[in-house]
């Protein structure tokens, strides 16, 4: 298990989550996405002060307002129905996800409600430079 990645996904990703929404963003920054060599290192070059990472994240963002967040939630609900209806299919997806946890250095920030570009009338897509790991998808 890549614990550095887990730190970055949960702690760093979580700490910027609301800041991103407040500034009409749906994902982490390109700078975050490019931070592939030392992501999640508590003692790395990541800012020490609380909020510093959030401030950095606010600099280069992709917009997602409340309405679009709701659209994502609907997508998630639809995914849930599909997953429940077809456990075998979901198991296959889970198996595929194991193999698709992403390259070791690849940023892995995605959750069903983050890191996605939303398109009117078309399925959401993963933001450039971000990898949906652990079975998450837009």
């Amino acid at each position, binding site marked *: *298990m890549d*614990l550095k990645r887990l730190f970055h996904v*949960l702690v760093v*990703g979580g700490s910027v*989550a609301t800041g991103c929404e407040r500034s009409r963003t749906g994902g982490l920054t390109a700078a975050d996405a490019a931070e592939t060599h030392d992501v999640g290192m508590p003692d790395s070059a990541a800012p020490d002060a609380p909020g510093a990472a959030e401030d950095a994240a606010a600099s280069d963002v992709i917009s997602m307002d409340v309405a679009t967040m709701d659209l994502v939630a609907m997508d998630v609900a639809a995914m849930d129905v599909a997953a429940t209806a077809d456990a*075998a299919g979901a198991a296959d997806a889970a198996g595929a996800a194991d193999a698709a946890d992403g390259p070791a250095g690849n940023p892995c920030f995605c*959750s069903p409600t983050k890191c996605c570009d939303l398109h009117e009338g078309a399925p959401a897509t993963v933001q450039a430079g971000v990898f949906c790991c652990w079975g998450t998808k837009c």
Partner: protein
Amino acid sequence: MLSEDGRLVTAVWLMRERTEREARALFAGLAADLGALDVDPALRRMARQAAADEGRHARRCRALVGRFSGPTAPPAPLPPRPFQLGPPELPIARRALYASVALSCVTETLATALLLELRRLATDAAVRATLHEVLRDEVDHARLGWAHLAAVARTGTAGWLAPQVPAMLRAALGGQIAPVDAGAPDPDLSGYGLLPRADVFRVVRAVAAEVLFPGLERFGIDTAEARASLPS
């Protein structure tokens, strides 16, 4: 599945079903508290979504119980006690932060790591699908706590939580250990979603050291007491 192992598997998924229902109630309470506070509305949305997710997780766990033990009675209602975490005298803002840290930062962060390990080892297709679905949501549930903690740390202090973390850890661990005596045989049922106790502790120690404690310290919560409280 009628063997002793089957009974243990059933008991664990029953325990998880109950834990998920309790988590649903706790996240709903957190959402209500957050609604009464001047906090980012996104936090409240995340808590409401987490409550809904946990209800769905409980149904998935119940389905596995039925798969392993045959038709089962509907789940017993939760006891009529307030689902509220932390010392009762805490003002609402601190109570909400306590709940966020206990539920999300501690419990859901450990759960995410354990689910990653469980999903890797699961061989039963239905178990694997359930673990996959739960894992997908737990990532967001953990992030709720880190988001709340980061927001508080930006304008105030969360250091008062330091003495509370050992109890949070104990509570989180209690929900992850199969309900068997410590000296009882500890069969490897990882194919059905149960890690041996030794593996649970191994994962918890690693995640606490590399993710949980550095995360808490990042936001001003001293973890010396919590580190000392972890089982060796």
